[in-house]
């Protein structure tokens, strides 16, 4: 069976969506699936070095994630890269708009990527959007 490919598009900056994206991406990556994560819009500032995983909750469940000490989304995204070989690609447009320099991003985040390159990577993959 050919290796499966999944592209995870993360545009939300809220805790529940970042958490679900990180859970899905990390477990897929360590299960032999080729995973590419494309970060854009409100998700990007959370991946600046030193930014905490303290994203705003959408509802009560987001607060419960903190209260119950669920693994934080940044740790899970890092593990997706380190344990599962996932790629995390920040959107070059989002970096430009937000004025974020590449060298200020967490070390597990890859090179800025434009939509053309991302669409090429996603052409034969399932795409999940959060």
């Amino acid at each position, binding site marked *: 069976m050919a290796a499966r490919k999944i592209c995870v598009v993360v545009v939300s900056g809220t805790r529940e969506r970042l958490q679900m994206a990180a*859970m899905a991406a990390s*477990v897929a990556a*360590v299960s032999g699936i080729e995973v590419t994560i494309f970060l854009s819009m409100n998700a990007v500032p959370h991946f600046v070095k030193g930014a905490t995983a303290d994203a705003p909750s959408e509802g009560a469940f987001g607060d419960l994630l903190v209260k119950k*000490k669920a*693994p934080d989304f940044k740790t899970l995204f890092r*593990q997706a890269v380190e344990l599962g070989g996932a790629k995390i690609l920040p959107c070059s447009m989002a970096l430009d708009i937000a004025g974020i320099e590449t060298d200020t991003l967490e070390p597990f985040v890859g090179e800025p990527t434009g939509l053309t390159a991302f669409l090429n990577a996603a052409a034969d993959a399932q795409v999940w959007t959060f």
Partner: protein
Amino acid sequence: MAEKKIIDGRGSFCPGPLMELIGVLKMSQIGDELEVLSNDKGSAKDIPEWVRKVGHEHVSTTEEAGVWHITVRKTK
């Protein structure tokens, strides 16, 4: 010689214990047994599923006083 290692994932939630297991598996030798301790019901089901999917051996799962002991043998 094969080793037995304990991974204490108590207090963590899915997929935390699984990720801790995978981190230790990568540094282990073929034949080593890893026992994950978890009080997360989801992990007690999900870890054996992952082990079968990637081809390691699920040795056993037992539950004692609300703590699951999931034992895995590294096979490759």
